[in-house]
């Protein structure tokens, strides 16, 4: 997709693809990221891969971030960043599909070291989640790590959006877990 | 020209349609025999009997319910 790449280059648009399982919050993660980028003064867009899958099935979600209004309205085939919320998906879906030489991949895993082909960062988000949230919901945690690694969104905006989205105690727990992941980045 | 949405703003104006022309038999009331039971008023499908038991031949279709339901046989159906 030559045209597409060119427009990316010129507009400096950043495209992020999320892989997760139904119920893990990949779609929410994509939206949280878009909202945080917007708070930073950027334009953003987020949408799920519109499926009929139920809890547990592999799902995808997408975020676009740009300094200008975003016109593109199709799925992301050549992401700049890939975030994998569950390393079990590595055996099931090709999370590396369509990635470029420059694409950075973040995987929630204790074990995966990467094949050397791609830049892969690992974080044991599940460990953090079980430790701090008491259940395996890693979407905010992986975003904290992503924020530090990529500097695409500010941690302040991210935390603010998390608080707005999850009011009360749940939000505060997520804020703490996200901060922790940020420090791990 | 029709009104917007064919809305009719003249309630009850079907009165311009004189359904008395449908009639072949005509009810004739003998007020002497009338016992004021009001059956002819209550059961008239065309609201053609008033409180004084006068029959409005403009609308009476001659169905004969009034005569049939009259307990004192005060109404007779007569060929027009």
């Amino acid at each position, binding site marked *: 997709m030559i045209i597409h790449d060119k427009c990316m280059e010129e507009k400096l648009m950043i495209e992020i693809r999320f892989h997760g399982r139904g119920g893990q919050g990949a779609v929410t993660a994509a939206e949280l990221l878009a909202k945080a980028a917007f708070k930073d003064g950027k334009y953003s867009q987020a949408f799920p891969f519109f499926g009929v899958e139920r809890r547990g099935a592999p799902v995808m979600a997408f975020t676009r971030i740009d300094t200008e209004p975003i016109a593109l309205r199709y799925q992301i085939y050549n992401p700049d960043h890939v975030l994998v919320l569950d390393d079990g998906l590595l055996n099931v879906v090709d999370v590396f599909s369509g990635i470029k030489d420059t694409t950075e991949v973040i995987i929630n895993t204790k074990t995966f070291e990467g094949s050397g082909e791609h830049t892969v960062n690992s974080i044991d988000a599940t460990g953090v989640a079980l430790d701090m949230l008491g259940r395996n919901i890693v979407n905010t945690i992986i975003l904290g790590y992503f924020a530090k690694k990529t500097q695409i969104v500010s941690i302040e905006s991210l935390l603010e959006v998390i608080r707005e989205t999850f009011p009360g105690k749940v939000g505060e727990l997520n804020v703490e877990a996200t901060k922790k992941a940020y420090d791990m980045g | 020209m*029709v*009104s917007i949405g*064919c809305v*009719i703003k*003249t*309630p*009850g*104006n*079907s*009165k*311009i*349609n*004189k*359904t008395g022309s*449908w*009639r072949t038999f005509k009810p004739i009331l003998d007020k002497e025999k009338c016992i004021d039971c*009001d059956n002819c*008023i*209550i*059961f*008239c*499908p*065309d*609201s*053609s009997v008033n*409180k004084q038991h006068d029959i*409005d031949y*403009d*609308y009476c*279709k*001659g*169905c*004969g*319910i009034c*005569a*049939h*339901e009259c307990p004192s046989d005060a109404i007779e*159906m007569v060929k027009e």
Partner: protein
Amino acid sequence: MDIPDKDLLAPGHRGCAGCGASIAVKLALNALGKNTVAISATGCLEVMTTPYPETSWEVPFIHVAFENSGAVASGVESALRIQGKDDVNVVAFGGDGGTVDIGLQSLSGAMERGHNMLYICYDNEAYMNTGIQRSGATPYGASTTTSPKGSASFGEDKPKKNMPMIMAAHGIPYVATASIAYPEDYVKKVKKAAETKGPAYIHLQQPCTTGWGYASEKTIEMGRLAVETGSWILYEIENGDFEITYRPEERKPVKDYISVQKRFKHLDEEQINKIQKYVDAHCKELGL
């Protein structure tokens, strides 16, 4: 019975000579009074009373389609209440086709949601507007154009759908049956329904000269015979309490009722006995 100075269904309408539907509506409107909005399903009633630019309605009236008078009434009721018009009576009329067949879902939804309205089914036991096709309310044995008698058919082969009990199963505060031949009973029920907070349903039997095949003067007599034979039972269910509102002194044989109608003319003794048994069972069930 109170006789108003002016009926709220004006004459000049296109109903047949001897039409029972116009009696049904006239009596209901007079009981409800001027502060009423009427909704109607498509059918005889709507066609004969609203041929543009004429209307027989002296109260506000709306018709949209055949199968949706329950939903239209829901919209009307909601719009009136949100405007603070809590005292306006909302009454919907539907024939048996528009009620027990095609309009059942829409009506069920309206009843379930608890709108403060009255729905009156004027049941003439077939689709009369389009020329006497059977409906779910057509009684066992009746010959209609779509349940005709023939060498292999004695007419409608299933008994009438028990619509009032289906409505009662919704748990609404007021359900009643009525007949145009018993106007005081009917009017009393309409008034009771209007006073009920929440949905009310009246299933009104309304003989039809054209569809049933009897002389036009006998519309009331047919209704009376239906009740006197136990073929149609007058009752009400008020907040779950069932009560028969009229008991014939001595129940007449069903034959007296059906032998005088063209739609049952073809039935033999055996079939008439079968109908008698069905009526007996139904009367027993309801305690008549």
